[in-house]
């Protein structure tokens, strides 16, 4: 968690959705197109009241589906506008086709996504199945632990997406209900600081620049398609240093420092949990408790899942004896969740690999109490003492 130097009295009590809507007001995008979906609805609902009150200059387009929302934002971005939308779950799934159009066309769109389970069965609560299903759509993915991080990440995402070396859309996640509808202290920046940080939008090849005509959405068969994908790949490689460079700049204006991931008590840790988003807070609490009891426990909270910081993760975790990888999504590969698969692959080249176990947890909003995280650390300590990792994939907090 990014540490604040300010006192709580300088903060505002905001829900996650309020914090993201506030960031969008300060960004003042040229175009916002959206369709409501629980639990992300409030973001655009609040933003639309800013629009109605004349607090933003945005062209607000209320469309008939998320597929249309993403299409409208793509059109706006092609025209040369700074464009945003927000969604969740089924809405993101319905956008799936257009996500690839946005990223393949290299439009620097920024989209807050409130993580929610996918149907069926119908569920409105948090898990990461929705955005994990979009992990190969060519977007940058940044996950936030709490409302503060959601706010900070959306502002930084504008700079990341629009960076000359990147030009790739970015989705910024917060956990549904737990964060989106939970009120916490949020330290916001003033409007001028945000606006000078993001700067004016400079579209690279705007369709509306009639003096310099360009083709948009051309057919691209065996002749050039591969080269375009190769360039997209290269852009994703360049994202990591750009994220760090922008985080450095953001720390100067906010006092809050971000990385590709956060290492908590990891330097001398013998056991560690790797986790994404809100459950990281509860994990940090458990790490503190275990440290007080003399246990060398640590945590690594992943912020950037796409691009996947494999080398950096391997470096940060190489000394740990046993690692629990927490997935709030089951990719139903029968081999564990997506984070587990990628993290194990990242550790493969280490001369001495930590023992790893996967925990699928919190699906459909199942609560993750302190006792559950403590049980994970207990399993890790058993792994260290026996030298055996045990079952590769385990389920936390489920009734068998």
């Amino acid at each position, binding site marked *: *968690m990014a540490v*604040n130097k300010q*006192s*709580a*009295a300088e*903060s*505002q*009590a905001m829900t996650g959705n309020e914090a993201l809507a506030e960031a969008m007001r300060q960004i003042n995008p040229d175009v916002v197109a959206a369709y409501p979906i629980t639990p992300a609805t409030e973001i655009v609902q609040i933003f639309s009241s800013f629009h109605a009150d004349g607090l933003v200059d945005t062209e607000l387009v209320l469309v008939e589906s998320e597929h249309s929302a993403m299409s409208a934002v793509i059109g706006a971005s092609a025209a040369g506008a700074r464009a945003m939308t927000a969604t969740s779950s089924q809405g993101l799934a319905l956008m799936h086709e257009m996500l690839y159009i946005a990223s393949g066309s290299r439009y620097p769109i920024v989209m807050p996504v409130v993580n929610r389970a996918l149907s069926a069965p119908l569920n*409105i*609560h948090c898990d990461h199945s929705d955005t994990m299903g979009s992990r190969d759509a060519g977007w940058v993915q940044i996950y936030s*632990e*709490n409302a503060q991080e959601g706010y900070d990440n959306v502002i930084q995402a504008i700079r990341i997406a629009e960076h000359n070396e990147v030009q790739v859309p970015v989705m910024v996640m917060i*956990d549904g*209900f*737990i*964060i989106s*509808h*939970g*009120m*916490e*202290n949020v330290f916001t920046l003033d409007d001028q600081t945000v606006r000078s940080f993001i700067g004016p939008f400079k579209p690279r090849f705007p369709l509306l620049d009639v003096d310099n005509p360009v083709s948009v959405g051309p057919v691209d068969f065996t002749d050039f398609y591969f080269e375009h994908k190769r360039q997209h790949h290269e852009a994703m490689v360049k994202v990591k240093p750009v994220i760090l460079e922008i985080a450095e700049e953001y720390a100067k204006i906010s006092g809050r420092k971000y990385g590709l991931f956060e290492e908590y008590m990891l330097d001398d840790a013998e056991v560690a949990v790797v986790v994404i988003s*809100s*459950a990281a*807070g*509860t994990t*940090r*609490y458990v790490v503190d408790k275990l440290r007080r009891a003399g246990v060398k426990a640590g945590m690594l909270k992943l912020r950037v899942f796409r691009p996947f910081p494999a080398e950096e993760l391997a470096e940060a975790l190489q000394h740990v004896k046993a690692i629990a990888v927490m997935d709030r999504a089951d990719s139903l590969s029968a081999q564990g969740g997506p984070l587990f698969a990628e993290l194990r692959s990242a550790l493969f080249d280490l001369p001495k690999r930590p023992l790893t176990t996967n925990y699928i947890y919190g699906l459909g909003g199942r*609560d*993750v*109490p*302190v006792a559950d995280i403590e049980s994970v650390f207990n399993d890790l300590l058993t792994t260290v003492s026996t030298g055996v990792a045990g079952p590769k994939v385990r389920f936390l907090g489920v009734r068998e």
Partner: protein
Amino acid sequence: MTVQPLTVEREELATSGASSEFIEIRWHGRGGQGAKTAALLMGEAASGAGKYVQAFPEYGPERMGAPVVAYNRISDGPIMLHCGIENPRFVAVLDISLANQVDFAAGIPEGGALLLNTSLTPAQAREKLNITNKSIRVYTVDASLISKETIGLPIPNTPMLGALNRVAGLLELEPLLASVRSKLQKKFRNKPEVIDGNVEAVKRAYLEVQGE
């Protein structure tokens, strides 16, 4: 104005098994009575007074009259936990007719407190609701009556906020009123009578809440 504290000392609670790092609160009400808003207002009021806060409702099928639960965590330092609250030190009940569906005292640790919206005295309420656990303190305030007399509507959430702050020893009266006023001013710019009524309701309940 000096008001006698109603609550036991923080140190005493710290040894009772309850978390001493932050205060946890659970709100019970029926859909439409403002339990969720009470938790959000509690969060806003406490953050306005320089505290770290969380406020979150338990989301289920939302309909008028159905049982609603909402929560707060309040602390002097940043709050990291993002899980449900199982052992709230304070429970505030906006509607005691929920008693046949809901166990208000569930999970309250020793030394914790139950604040009830009722015209009964704490002793009468304890007997009526059959709260046998003597380690839980019972407080009562007639929040529905206060809201009718001050706001003109039977919406007991703001008076309960006042009473809870006294019972929990959280904010003192003046900072609480200042914080509530400033939060309401943002929401009801064009309805000053709503602001005054609510501030009066918070103040009356703060002063009128009774302990055992």
